[in-house]
């Protein structure tokens, strides 16, 4: 009877353990294989850094990384700028309803977003490239920035703004000196989130980047499709490390200082 009880108690942790193994076994294997001297994943020939060497000397990877970074930084800058200005300058009573306007982006499957943009670009004969990609990623960025900043601003005491204005600050100066510092943790958090979403995005890039602009996810896609090289293991490991770092930064800025339930 007691053994049965212990069994029942251990069942849930055991199940959770198995599920975490399911979630992390592929990633662990990937990281281990990135250090494998053998090019075959079924043979272990000892430790080696050759795939990392190959990775860092590949001009195609550097070019794709450069494109990805240009797009990601532009999308972060644009969506933060437009988003924060909107939230700050919009009359308070319209804020809730306007925020709803931006939820649509996330409610639709990503492919619908991509196809919509592509249809419009094709119809107006807009050449596809990094610019069209930035347009798409900024759109997704706004869908995160506007709700996050709105919910943070609504936590703020209006008296702070009132006091600044009473003391003679213009609205612009009050934004700069009072509101912006208050919103900063959320703005940084949202910026990190938009950055990684843009940096990782495949679907929008697949449709809206055209043939000339290759981002990192597009590069990975083409390599996997044409028979992957072990270099992809090394690239994946580097990307995983970057992701982990960004999650830690994100939770540092948002969870400690408030900012909501955005994973």
């Amino acid at each position: 009877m007691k053994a049965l009880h212990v069994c029942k108690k251990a069942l849930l942790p055991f199940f959770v353990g198995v599920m975490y193994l399911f979630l992390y076994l592929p990633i662990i294997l990937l990281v281990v294989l990135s250090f494998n001297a053998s090019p075959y994943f079924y043979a272990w020939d000892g430790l080696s850094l050759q795939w990392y060497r190959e990775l860092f000397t590949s001009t195609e990877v550097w070019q794709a990384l450069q494109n990805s970074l240009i797009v990601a930084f532009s999308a972060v800058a644009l969506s933060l700028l437009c988003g924060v200005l909107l939230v700050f300058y919009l009359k308070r009573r319209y804020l809730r309803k306007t925020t709803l306007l931006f939820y649509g982006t996330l409610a639709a499957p990503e492919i619908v977003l991509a196809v919509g943009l592509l249809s419009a670009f094709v119809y107006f004969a807009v050449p596809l490239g990094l610019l069209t990609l930035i347009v798409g990623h900024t759109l997704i960025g706004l869908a995160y920035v506007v709700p996050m900043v709105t919910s943070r601003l609504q936590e703020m005491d209006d008296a702070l703004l009132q006091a600044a204005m009473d003391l003679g600050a213009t609205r612009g100066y009050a934004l700069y000196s009072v509101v912006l510092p208050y919103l900063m943790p959320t703005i940084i958090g949202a910026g990190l989130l938009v950055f990684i979403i843009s940096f990782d995005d495949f679907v929008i890039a697949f449709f809206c980047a055209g043939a000339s602009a290759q981002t990192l996810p597009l590069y990975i896609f083409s390599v996997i499709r044409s028979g992957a090289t072990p270099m992809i293991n090394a690239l994946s490991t580097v990307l995983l490390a970057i992701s982990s770092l960004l999650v830690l930064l994100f939770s540092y800025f948002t969870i400690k200082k408030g900012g909501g339930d955005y994973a």
Partner: protein
Amino acid sequence: MKQSLRASLKSEIPFFMVVPALVWQVLFFYLPLFFVIYISFTQQENNLFSAHTWENYATFFAWPFARVLLRSFSLAVGTSIICLLAGYPIAYYLARRAERWKNVLLFLLVLPFWTNMLVQVYAWFALLERVGFVNRMLSYVGWISTPLTLLNNSFAIYVVMVYYYLPFMVIPIYAVLEKLQDEYLQASRDLGATPIQTFWRVTLPLSMSGITTGFFLVFIPAFGEFVIPGFMGGHKYMYVGSLISYYYLVARNESMGAAFTVVSGVLLLVGAYMLYRLFVHFTPAERAS
């Protein structure tokens, strides 16, 4: 005169500040959606759209297209259900049982959100190949003598779909269970309910909002998914996403692609609405706050 112009301009500044984001959203989200609908009624030749027609839609009244839609729909429903069954215990454990390890486990759960999807999909090849990790482990233990075919079939598709979408299910359920007040469970126990009764009659109904959110966070993107079924199914089966991308990127027939996007979009909306009604049916009317 000059003075008043400046004054009126100044009062208009807030308007200009609000415009960029709104214009962006309307110009690049809502207008393109209308465009998809618009060009779905056109016929296309050499990037010229002309002749309003229903013909594109008529094409899709055929069994092969219905099968593509059904396949995506059942993949989305199947993935959501498996994610729910596997994800609920995880969310429950994280919210109610894991004490010391909670933050680490949450971090590990959120990390995939921030990780490149292609990296996650690619990681499975080394596991599921004929000479991959799983087959080697199984034959090492002695459970199999010939390697199993684990790739290029629906098994592989479902495994990786669940793998990728599981966190989307767990997080919202966790968020609800974490806020669940102990008093309710205490009251249920004091009134003589067994733990199982408490779970079915108190915990589960009170977590329906999280389940609903999680279900749709998985269901909607899974319906449009084409990368995972493509790689894991060996490009053997057509899904909604793969057909749309075929029309747009390979056949270069945006009109047909748009028409199929509209058809599948409508099906998605109808399906999602019906599922939503189902969830509402099982949600207790008087929600305790």
